[in-house]
């Protein structure tokens, strides 16, 4: 691999760009070395920007024949010791669960950016929050993955860099979950060199093809994902699940506002959180007893933080551009805490939710008229 000719981002500067472009710059700034990908709207521009920067910064790229291959070649890139990533959406995300199952089983730190679009099937190429279940729990496993849900271009940039560190430190497939609106809209953000902000990048290392003579300097590595008997699998899963649960508290991230003393707590993630935050802050400024809770990691889910945030609430409002995918996570993670709270919902699969809609729903609930 040739040495980078120049550093992609020096210091920091404010820019106006689309989300896809921000992802690309984050990957470059994070020192990602190779991208494998397949075209699908609305993430194509990540590849467009990446390929244009390949010669300039000594990076690599392969357009594969489909998302199955994109996922498996990314696994290969990681096995060879590179910071490798891919991006996908919708039906591509469905296909990608094939390789992602393998990455999950074998603790291969792939980084995947998902720009959610309408579902199921082809639906729209535009927007939704309908790939939450798929990204968190897709594949035939237990969802031992890390999923960050972003709500702005700044976060797209910040968390794409973080995803590489999280993946290589903890060795789980790590996702940046955004959507078509974030991918295609243009807004301001500050791009920066992680070093300039004191962020050190966790080094990648080869899992196969390490230097040295077999039998003298090292042993041969044999990686598999198949077992012969149930007990073997049980041991492997117990080991992985135990570790996942052990490190989850270090990984979870969430945000809460005005939840102490709030009668109503609004729960949303991703770009819908943005609308919810605006609505809640507006109402709170008027003295209304309303707050919000936002999971940043959907996986592992900030359960403890959620339960704490809603401990004093009388009711909850869950808003998402899906039909209950966030709601399911919320309910599951409320259990054991205050699980009898009435939960109202704004469920709009594949459709955006504006601050005005959230304000209206909150006002109606706070006035006791119901959603």
């Amino acid at each position, binding site marked *: 691999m040739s040495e980078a000719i120049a550093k992609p981002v020096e210091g920091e500067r404010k820019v*106006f760009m689309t989300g896809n472009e921000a992802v690309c710059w984050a990957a470059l700034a994070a020192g990602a070395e190779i991208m494998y990908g397949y075209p699908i*709207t*609305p993430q194509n521009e990540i590849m467009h920007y990446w390929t244009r920067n390949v010669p300039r910064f000594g990076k690599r790229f392969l357009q594969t024949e489909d998302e199955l291959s994109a996922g498996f070649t990314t696994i290969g890139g990681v096995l060879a010791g590179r910071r490798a990533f891919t991006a996908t959406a919708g039906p591509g995300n469905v296909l990608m669960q094939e390789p992602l199952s393998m990455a999950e089983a074998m603790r291969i730190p792939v980084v995947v950016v998902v720009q959610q679009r309408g579902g199921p099937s082809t639906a*729209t*190429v*535009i927007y939704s929050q309908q790939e939450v279940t798929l990204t968190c729990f897709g594949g035939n496993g237990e969802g031992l993955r890390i999923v960050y849900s972003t709500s*702005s271009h700044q976060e797209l940039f910040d968390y794409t860099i973080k995803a590489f560190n999280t993946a290589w430190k903890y060795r789980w497939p790590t996702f940046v979950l955004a959507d*078509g*609106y*974030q991918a*295609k*809209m*243009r*807004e*301001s953000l500050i791009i920066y060199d992680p070093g300039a902000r004191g962020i050190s990048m966790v080094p990648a290392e080869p899992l196969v093809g390490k230097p040295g003579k077999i039998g003298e300097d090292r042993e041969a590595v044999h990686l598999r994902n198949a077992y012969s008997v149930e007990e073997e699998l049980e041991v492997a899963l117990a080991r992985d699940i135990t570790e996942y649960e052990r490190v989850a508290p270090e990984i979870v991230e969430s945000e809460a506002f005005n939840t102490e003393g709030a009668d109503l707590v609004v729960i949303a993630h991703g*770009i819908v959180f*943005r*609308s919810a*935050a*605006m609505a809640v802050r*507006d109402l709170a*400024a008027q003295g209304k007893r309303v707050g919000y809770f936002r999971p940043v990691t959907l996986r592992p889910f900030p359960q403890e933080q959620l339960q704490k945030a809603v401990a004093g609430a009388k009711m909850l409002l869950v808003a998402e551009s899906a039909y209950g995918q966030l709601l399911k996570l919320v309910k599951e993670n409320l259990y054991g805490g205050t699980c009898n709270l009435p939960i109202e919902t704004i469920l709009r699969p594949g459709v*955006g*939710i*504006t*601050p*005005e*809609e959230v304000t209206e729903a909150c006002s109606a609930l706070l006035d006791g008229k119901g959603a």
Partner: protein
Amino acid sequence: MSKPVKIALAGEGGQGVQSVAQILMDAAALEGKEALYIPNFGIEQRGGVSIAFVQIGDEKIGAPKFKTGDIVIALSDRAVRRTRMYVGPQTLFVYDSGIEGVEGDLPTNAKQVLAIPALEIANRKLHPRVFNILIMGAVIGATGVVTLDKAREAIDKRLGYKFEQNPELRELNFRALQEGVNLVAGMGVRS
């Protein structure tokens, strides 16, 4: 908290709707304002009406799309029909007076409906190529969302490479911008 100005621009492919949106964004950036722009994209965009949603304000914009715009501008008959859904009681609805057969399709719930002879003026006094810059001038005139100064700077930034080859183009574009502002001012619109 001051709310951002919500602008929806719609027209046929080739009328320069997305270009105007981008230049407005650049101007907002130069003003030091916050802005968010998103086009309609995907299957609808191919062969359909081209729509740009632009929001400009002092604080970070809350959501990429909006239910009703402060100003909605439609540059074709299909655009008139397509953008009706973004019109509310506070909306200024602007359309090109040259569009035929849309009388029955115009929104009835807008704050004000304005027909401007943008294309006619562009053709007669300027050049059809700067029609979209004239529209941009109309948007600025109606909303004051950016200053003309920064608008000109933004146009220079984006189209400067063309002006280098043909300096008259700069004059033409700046005149179109002014024409747009004048057009709207002359019709008594101030938001």
